[in-house]
């Protein structure tokens, strides 16, 4: 029996979150990402004017002078994202939270439960999402994840597209192969040499040829395009990490080594907080310095032993940092990637006594408790001081989102009520 998989995708999610809570923004070109200086999401009005994702501020001003540029309010977007999943879960518990603005849902076999057909279930979910979140979603209904994803992209905004195995060619023959979920530019170039240009060409290709000339993921895509569901929905919440990374841009760009290092130090502290939250330790790290003209320089570091302590990571990074840094060069961002993750166990070595190790563990448990009570970075390392002294962005880009500026009586700067707020004056 064929499966019934839904892919549900928010239309211009961040920009729509903003438009739906401020009536004066409806119908206007709205762009989010002001704090980064580049467009992270654009309303359909802004897309129509030629604003694209990643476009820098000065260019947005050029192509669309009346664009309304807003700082991202990730707190509100995350709350609305949770609502998206919760509303879909009214109809099935097999939901994969694929991204902040999208999810997959398996509604196979639920026609009798809901006393309606698959298309009606899809329509009902879409209607509830549109009405309760105040902006539109696009939905694809198909026998596999890859086809469902084509369906949700087929008609945007606010589309509902059903693709069945029988009429899949109507869609696939018009769909460029590079837009298929999971097919990247490398593969696209290779496929072009084989005269495979559309998803239809790919799905019609000989299975034997696919298996022998491409890797397994592409054979899976081939099967999914032909209506066979082989990619299961990942319904488990994410608990294992291959790497933890923290990368942050700051403005204005800086040349002062101490300031740049303090930014890196703050990222390291953040990465270590995440390590400890997931009870992990890292063996290796990679640090990245990004110059004002977007050149990245990075270096690998191996720790003497696995650690989740920022002071140890910072000490290990300091030497590499000074080798990496070019004098008088302007830098705009720093980052750290921690890899070689293992679950945290105490490992005394020849040179440190167990008592000392336990003392440090207790110290960081204390730090984490203080953070839980008074907010992240209530206590931080001296090396992060310069970064903690100011926000990440000074001047106009330092503009905080509305929800972070105006809190309600009884709320604090760091804890807000977990219900999104409408921002109009009534």
């Amino acid at each position: 029996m064929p499966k019934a998989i839904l892919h549900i995708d928010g239309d211009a999610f961040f920009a729509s979150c903003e438009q739906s809570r401020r009536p004066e923004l409806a119908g206007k070109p709205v762009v989010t990402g002001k704090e980064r200086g580049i467009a992270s999401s654009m309303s359909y009005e802004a897309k129509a004017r030629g604003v694209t994702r990643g476009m820098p501020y000065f260019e947005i001003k050029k192509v669309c002078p009346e664009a309304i540029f807003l700082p991202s309010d990730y707190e509100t977007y995350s709350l609305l994202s949770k609502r998206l999943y919760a509303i879909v879960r009214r109809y099935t518990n097999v939901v994969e939270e694929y991204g902040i603005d999208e999810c997959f849902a398996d509604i196979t076999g639920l026609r009798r439960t809901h006393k309606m057909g698959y298309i009606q279930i899809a329509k009902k979910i879409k209607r509830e999402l549109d009405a309760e979140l105040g902006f539109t979603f696009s939905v694809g209904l198909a026998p596999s994840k890859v086809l469902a994803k084509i369906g949700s992209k087929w008609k945007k905004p606010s589309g509902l597209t059903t693709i069945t195995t029988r009429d899949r060619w109507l869609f696939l023959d018009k769909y460029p192969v590079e837009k298929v979920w999971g097919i990247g530019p490398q593969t696209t170039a290779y496929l072009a040499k084989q005269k495979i240009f559309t998803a239809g060409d790919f799905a019609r290709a000989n299975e034997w040829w696919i298996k022998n000339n491409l890797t397994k993921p592409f054979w899976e895509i081939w099967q999914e395009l032909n209506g066979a569901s082989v990619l299961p929905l990942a319904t488990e919440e994410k608990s294992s990490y291959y790497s933890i990374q923290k990368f942050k841009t700051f403005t204005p760009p800086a040349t002062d080594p101490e300031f740049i290092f303090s930014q890196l130090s703050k990222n390291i502290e953040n990465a270590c907080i995440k390590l400890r939250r997931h009870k992990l330790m890292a063996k290796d790290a990679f640090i990245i310095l990004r110059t004002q003209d977007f050149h990245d320089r990075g270096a690998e570091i191996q720790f003497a032993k696995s650690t989740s302590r920022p002071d140890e990571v910072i000490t290990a990074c300091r030497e590499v940092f000074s080798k990496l840094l070019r004098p008088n060069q302007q830098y705009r961002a720093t980052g750290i990637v921690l890899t070689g993750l293992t679950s945290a166990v105490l490992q005394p070595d020849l040179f440190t006594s167990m008592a000392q190790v336990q003392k440090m563990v207790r110290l960081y448990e204390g730090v984490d408790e203080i953070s839980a009570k008074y907010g992240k970075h209530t206590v931080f390392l001296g090396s992060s001081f310069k970064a903690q002294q100011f926000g990440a962005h000074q001047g106009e880009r330092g503009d905080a989102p509305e929800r972070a500026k105006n809190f309600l009586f009884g709320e604090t700067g760091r804890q807000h009520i977990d219900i999104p707020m409408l921002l109009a004056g009534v």
Partner: protein
Amino acid sequence: MPAKYLQHFVKFYKAHKRLPTYRELMQAAKLKSTNAVHKIVAKLAEEGYLSRDASGKIAPGRRFLQLPLLGEVTAGFPSPAEEELVDTMSLEEYLINRKEATYLLKVQGDSMIDAGIMPGDILLVERGREAKENDIVVAEVDHQWTLKYFRRKGQQVTLVPANKKYKTIYPHEELKIAAIVVGAVRKYKN
């Protein structure tokens, strides 16, 4: 079904002062896979007994601590007070019907002052619900939102303020109702 597993959580919580991991529950409840545990947790989370923290670990939900520790879970007889509390609800449950559709809105103006809605009040408003006679609604008029009583005479909808200083609005075109007011919160002291 999942309700019968709740006792395992409660038992474990009493003994260890924390909730079990998936694996611990699997053993305690003699389940065959963590996937089965996952389903139970999802269901109990939906019902408000459990929640999951940022790292995906199981945490007590708002209803968990209200659970009466009855029967085999507690030694001896349950206290009558616990039984009386079975059918209680949290303030949040009292104020909110449809959680996913509810938003906060801070009042600025005084157009509904005679309805007891003061500037500074926090309203709980629900989206995607049809307005009924005399509901207090957030209506869209000229790309602005306004707070008024919703009234209908035949085909004509009117938006009526609760303040003599303001005039009743007779919308010409199709009226958009952004949300319906379902409750209000006013906090005086921390």
